């Protein structure tokens, strides 16, 4: 017994002494480096975001393997217009934000010309970890752009408020109307809210766009007309516009209350955090700002609640998950340190890192694993036939302008649904 005690004490001493000078080992990622880990170089990522903490966190994680690689994110002013110039200049970035609409667009021919084919097997990127509908192949079958976040449309739901009021989160259009009525009766003037001051990111578009895409998805001919901005496609907007109007007219949304919200991002979030809004209509981009603003909101800090982001149940079959890329990266194939740049991309384009980044940024992950963030859990429940990939469908950017402006103007009462239908193709 005494010997055992001696041994235990000695082991404790040694453990204590050795613990003085050691640091806990950090868990290393499964990423296996292919280059010299002591390599010294710098990599720049250029984009339009003011802040990109999620990416900077990835820089730090990459530095655990390559400590001497200096990675930095640079925000470019007038991004879309200056990108071509920057790529040709001395400060050309290694990686840059890119958009699918740049592909095939003559204005961005020089930009496209710098894009590396990420599907090249030699690069070893795990593109299979990304949902196939988010990956765009050009005419030659190349993948010039890799999505790192996904964007979708829906509503922030104050789950605790529903529980408090004894109501269930609606999953069909009928339930939605009933829940709104119930909230209204309980004194909630605007059970649903959203940004309504400008057409950009207005709640009307968030409501209408998924319905419009649903209509187009069911009718390929109509899609062609819509992409061609043919007024004949205007009729396919009608159900979407009527739904917007009905929400307002039924008292689900108090437009005057929505007009109090100053912008389509921070103010929307802070309004939702006031805790008296059962449902706040917004895009995933807005949801990305919620985590950081929890501490900024005095109301939320005082009375925090559980919330989630769910599809708006615009049909009796439920809501739709419009799954489109939000932020996409291209590699400048003419940059310095291209091998290390591709090494970083190989590190980044994995389920682990993309999920990690989406978790930090609180955006929808582009990977096949949607359950990573509880806030987006409702979207993981959406059946596959209710998932629409605009990129796969072939939605062109001008089309999105038409439905956005039309929905905004109908929602604000500026024009009627009939007028909007007739004006398709003419909205700016």
């Amino acid at each position, binding site marked *: 017994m*005494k010997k055992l*005690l*001696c041994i235990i*004490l*000695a082991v*404790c*001493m*040694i453990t*204590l*002494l050795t613990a*003085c*000078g050691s640091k806990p080992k950090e868990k290393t990622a499964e990423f296996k480096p292919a280059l010299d880990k002591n390599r010294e170089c710098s990599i720049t990522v250029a984009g339009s975001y*003011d*802040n990109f*903490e999620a990416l*900077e*966190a990835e*820089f*730090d994680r990459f*530095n655990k393997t390559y400590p001497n690689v*200096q990675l*930095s994110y*640079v*925000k*470019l*002013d*007038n991004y879309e*217009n*200056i990108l071509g*110039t*920057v*790529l*040709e*200049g*001395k*400060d*050309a970035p290694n990686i840059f934000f890119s958009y699918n609409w740049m592909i095939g667009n003559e204005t961005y021919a020089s930009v496209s010309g710098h894009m590396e084919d990420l599907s090249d097997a030699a690069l070893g990127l795990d593109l299979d970890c990304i949902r196939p509908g988010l990956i765009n192949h050009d005419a030659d079958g190349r993948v010039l752009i890799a999505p790192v976040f996904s964007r979708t449309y829906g509503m922030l739901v104050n789950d605790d408020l529903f529980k408090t009021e004894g109501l269930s989160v609606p999953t069909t259009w009928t339930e939605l109307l009933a829940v709104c009525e119930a909230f209204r009766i309980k004194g909630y003037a605007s059970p649903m809210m959203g940004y309504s001051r400008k057409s950009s990111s207005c709640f009307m578009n968030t409501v209408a766009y998924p319905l419009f895409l649903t209509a187009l998805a069911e009718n390929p001919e109509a899609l062609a007309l819509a992409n061609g901005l043919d007024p004949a496609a205007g009729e396919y907007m009608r159900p979407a516009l009527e739904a917007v109007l009905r929400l307002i007219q039924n008292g689900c949304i108090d437009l005057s209350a929505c007009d109090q919200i100053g912008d389509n991002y921070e103010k929307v979030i802070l309004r939702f955090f006031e805790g008296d809004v059962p449902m706040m209509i917004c895009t995933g981009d807005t949801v990305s700002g919620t985590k*950081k603003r929890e*501490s*900024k909101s*005095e109301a939320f800090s005082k009375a925090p609640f559980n919330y989630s982001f769910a599809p708006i149940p615009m049909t009796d079959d439920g809501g739709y998950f419009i799954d489109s890329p939000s932020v996409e990266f291209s590699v400048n194939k003419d940059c310095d340190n291209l091998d290390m740049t591709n090494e970083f991309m190989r590190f980044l384009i994995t389920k682990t890192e993309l999920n990690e980044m989406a978790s930090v940024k609180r955006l929808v992950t582009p990977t096949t694993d949607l359950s990573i963030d509880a806030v987006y859990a409702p979207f993981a429940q959406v059946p596959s036939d209710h998932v629409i990939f605009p990129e796969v469908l072939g939605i062109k950017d001008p089309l999105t302008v038409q439905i956005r402006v039309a929905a905004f103007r109908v929602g604000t009462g500026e024009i009627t649904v009939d007028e909007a239908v007739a004006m398709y193709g003419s909205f700016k």
Partner: protein
Amino acid sequence: MKKTWVIIVNVLIMIVLLTFVVFYSNYENRNTAQRQIEHFENTTITMEHVTENYLEGEQRICDVWARYINSKEMTIEDAVSFIRISHVLPNASAHIVYLDSLSGLSTRAGQEASDYTVSYKRVDLLEDVSWISGIGESINISRAYTNPVNGEQSIAFCNFITLHDPENGTPSSAVLLRVLPISELEQKWVFPQEEFEKAELSMIDANGNYIIKGHSFKNSSFFEFYRSYNATDPASAQALFEKTTSSTGSFTMLNSRGEKCILAYTPFAATQGWTLLSFMPMNDLKADTENWLLISFVSAGLLILFVFDLSVMLHFNKKLQASAREAASANKAKTDFLSTMSHDIRTPMNAIIGLTTIAEKNLGDTEAVGENLRKITLASNHLLTLINDILDISKVESGKLNLSPQTFSIVETVENLLNLSQPMIKEKNIEFNFRTSRMEKEYIYADQLRLNQIYINILSNAIKYTEPGGRVSVDMREEESQKPGCVQLTYRVSDSGIGMSPEFMATMYRPFSRQVDSRVNSIQGTGLGLAITKQMVDLMGGTIDCQSEQGKGTVFTVILDLPIADRQRDDMMLEPMDVLVVDDDEILLETAIDTLESLGVTADHARSGLEALGMIMHRNKTGRDYSVVILDWKMPDIDGVETIRRIRTEVNSNIPILLISAYDWSDIEEAAKKAGANGFVSKPLFRSKLYDKINELLGTEVKSVEPENDYSDLQGMNILIAEDNDINWEIISTMLGMFGITTERAENGRICVEKMKQAAKGSYALIFMDIQMPEMNGLDATRKIRALDDPWASSIPIIAMTADAFSENVTECLNTGMNGHIAKPIDMKLVIKEIRRIKEEKRS
């Protein structure tokens, strides 16, 4: 204290020490870190001055251009041309932008070589120009932005200028931007000190937005950066930001990697609301490296100390356990010994008591009583030996065995040895030889008692363990000693006894050890003799060696370096003469001849009686008779007595003949004298003995040798005996009375002194003084007597007669002024010897 507690206390002490070292180290670290931080802050302030000078310099260039353009009423083309001429920096450029259209011209072309147009419409820089002051009023530096001409991240120094329409001269407001690439600036804008090479700089405006941003600074705003990676509440954060943008100082914060960093801040004096930030990880301050080394070193040292102490403690514990085992073993041995002693003591006691009872009942039967008394004496002597051995070993074990050296004759010692051993030798009919070689130094200064004990123990063991008819030989040799003033005495006793097993030999010097042997068990012994002998030999600085083989015999060799006494016999030289030595023992012959020649005589030798007879006859015929013939009694063909008889009858010579015998010659005395022997000499043949005997034989010097049973010299002596015990008094007075000595008793020391005071001169020949007595002990009484005025009384011989038998008691007695010591129970032979010695000393 239990071992566990010792370990716990040790560990606690180590923890306390380590905690102290850690705390002290941390304290020192904090001080060092604080100094480093202060240094970092000061360097930041220096950097602010340097940066401000640089920015002011750049701004002044812009100011000069603006003043010149304004003074010359230039068109935009004129202004651009002027600046192109003035511009010297290769990577810098200038933009002139109309405030109304936010477009204008650049001094450098864009992607297309001929295109000098520039537009700031989408740059979000010049929509609000309230940050631009008048010329020379302040540094009008823009935030970092993307140069719309070449896409480089740049900053611009700005001034308002007025341009004129080339056609109508209408003035228009415009902004002149002196544009510098950030990359250019980054190369120059670094900390000068090497220790801060990893520090990074940023410049922020009053809202925390970066004007120039270092690599480690994240987000577009420093405030946002701080909030993103550091837990804080809005109020605290706001207070911190206000402090950061309005004062100089530093604080720690976490960077994007979760590392603790130091951020130093200082406001720009010349630019309202701007702040310079310096940022670096705390680890790079290198404040604690040495202290960790110290802690590690101390920890390792304490650990080694702990392990060492633990090992030593375990080692000592093992030794203690071994000692405890030995002590237990010794205790067991003692218990066994006591058990044996009880038996050994009870056995002679039983004999004494039993025989005394028998004697009492047979008082009328003189022969039976005599036999009983003889046996009682034997049992008493054995008991006395036992008690002496126990006392000796007790002293040996307590370390109190001291030596009491005195001058004595080694010849006497050997004689004593022989006297003591003769009875047993005789009884067991053992063939006994005692040879000496060159014993030149007769007087030795050593502890005679202990030396006797050593020699007797070894010899008595040899005799004891040799079966009847066996052989015991003693060789004593004197050699030169390495020690100055000493001789080396080698005492070798060999026997043909039962021998010893190797197992027993390994432990034979331990007290209470006796060989387990059926033959040995029948022999009386204490198991202490060898232990005592070994201790005494060690105490005398000698060696004892033993060679033994079971069934064949044992050889003990004791070698001692003994100091030579100052007193030696004068030069012993005989007159020149011829002496014949006859013995069948070659060694004796050799040593005897050697000894005789050293006495100055010519010695011949013969190995048998017949040969001696022949040689004597031959000498006789030639008229050269031997002066003395010394012959051995026991010889193979004809023994010594027969040889003497034949010499006397066949040669008809009166040659003095000495008969040598190793034994008591009383048995053959009569026959030898009748045969014509003139004298006897016992082995060993010491030089002095031969000298004395030959002189005595030739009548050169007559030694008065008292007949053994002649006590006439003691008749009429009166001795005072100080003895408190009635029985003891009765014994000593009766026994002395048997020798014709009268006695008077003093019951204690005081009475003894009184008697001496009152006694007439010569009343007493000497005093036998007991030591432990009531009223006044023997020592005090001796001191009083020695202090008496009467010279006779004060010098009267006093012999201690006491049961205090230890050597220190003897020494104490002699130191007190006594002349001798006799231990109780008394041996009358010793008493008589002591009386004669005193008498002899008085006569001389």
